């Protein structure tokens, strides 16, 4: 059974005239798969992610995560937001344990895990810092540690590295790949950056705009683990050419 199963999904925003954001989207994501949704702005890729997260409701079609129809947002689907969306009044540590603490779990049950996750993202020495005292990249790492502590099996990432400088973005991509190799969550990663999609994902879905549709599904042939050198290989460039052709289509 796929981790995420999307069938004939439509999303229309009411209005005059109504805006159709997504049309007949079909998508299967296997457990542990790394999927990238790639497309220009306005193609509905963020809308699709918001539907899976439960932040918005679909107009028709079906959307199942682990066999259950998606209703409300929940800890099974962790979201990493574009601007991290950390609580600015809480320290890094308090942000990371917000989920389990809010759910009323016993501290013994999540504190070790939270320490581990902060170590994995390299922020063990920043537990008592406030988000405003961190750089953009570090804030995103807190955002990642937070949903890993939450124990989400599905990670939904909405252009999480889009606002970072090129160097920080690369190190964040490598960090994300290493986290994924260690914990094997299912990841749906929204981006408009072709290189990013190809470097990270097993499968890239190319979307087109107005109405948002899946235009092509492509399997990335690069072997794992990947390194930055792979992004200059012949097969990488061939895929990139193909996607460019699809987008300009």
């Amino acid at each position, binding site marked *: 059974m796929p981790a995420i199963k999307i069938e004939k999904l439509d999303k229309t925003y009411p209005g005059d005239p109504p805006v159709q954001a997504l049309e007949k989207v079909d998508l299967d994501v296997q457990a542990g798969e790394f999927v990238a949704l790639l497309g220009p702005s306005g193609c509905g890729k963020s809308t699709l992610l918001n539907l899976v*997260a439960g932040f918005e409701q679909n107009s028709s079609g079906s959307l199942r995560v682990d066999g259950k129809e998606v209703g409300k*947002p929940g800890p099974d689907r962790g979201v990493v937001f574009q601007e991290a969306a950390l609580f600015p009044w809480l320290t890094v540590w308090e942000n990371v344990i*917000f989920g389990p603490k809010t759910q009323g779990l016993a501290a013994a049950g999540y504190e070790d895990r939270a320490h581990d996750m902060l170590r994995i993202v390299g922020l063990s020495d920043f537990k008592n810092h*406030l988000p*405003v005292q961190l750089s953009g990249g570090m804030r995103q790492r807190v955002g990642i540690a937070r949903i890993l502590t939450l124990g989400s099996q599905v990670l939904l990432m909405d252009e999480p590295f889009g606002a970072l400088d090129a160097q920080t973005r690369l190190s964040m991509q490598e960090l994300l790949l290493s986290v994924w190799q260690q914990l094997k969550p299912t990841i749906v990663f929204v981006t408009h950056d072709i290189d990013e999609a190809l470097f990270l994902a097993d499968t890239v879905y190319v979307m087109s705009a107005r109405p948002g549709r899946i235009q092509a599904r492509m399997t990335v042939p690069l072997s794992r683990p990947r390194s930055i050198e792979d992004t200059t290989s012949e097969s990488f460039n061939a895929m990139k050419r193909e996607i460019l052709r699809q987008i300009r289509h």
Partner: protein
Amino acid sequence: MKRLKKILFGLAVPFAVLMIWQIVGSRENMAGIVPTPLAVLAGWRGWVFGTPGLGLNPYQGTWFSNVQYSAMRVGQGFALAALLGIPLGLMIGWSKLVSQLFDPLVQSLRPIPITAWLPFSIALFGIRDIGSIFLIFLGGFYAIVVNATQGARDVERNLVRAALMMGATRSQLLRRVVLPSAMPSIFTGMRIGLGISWTAVIVSEMVAVKSGLGYVLWDAYYVGRMDIVLADMVSIGAMGYISDRLIVFIERRVLRWRILQNH
């Protein structure tokens, strides 16, 4: 050196004003209308440190107790305003139902100046403390409600989504996300509200009770003690300033994250 210069420059104009006041006030035809700064100081000293109950001066040594009366009323009325205003404001900003129920009432009563409530308040409560506290409460209440409402409405959408994603219930969302997000607005509302509360205490003490800085102000005017009137005005200003600083002091502690953010 730079600091000293800044302080000297800041004191120059007020000092000049005091000097002119002293000179003009010393002219014979001004006597009894505008007492000189030195006369105000002398009157004030008697008001603060004099022995009460002696002679024909009813104000001797009553300053502390009058300040205390006014401060207590402001404290009580303002505390009540914050206690009711903050939760109500948050709920109006957060819940459509509460907004539909209460916002029209708040918005339609808000334009009535607190001074217009005076006769009604006296009729309702009589010449007693509670009438004054009621007016102070009203003075602080609207500013606090309106700002708390705005704060709750301005909560960042992604913070709400993040909390829901992590399993927060609606009431947890209100306490752990909406309340702290709205805190800067709430403090703004409290500072504005406190200023209005001080206006309310003076007005109400002039009419509705027989003690406090507002009562002394009006009483001293009636018996022609302009030195006490002016000393009283300065006292009110000082109390307003001190209580505002107190809120700013608390705000700096509570909103450390916010202060760091703005630097």
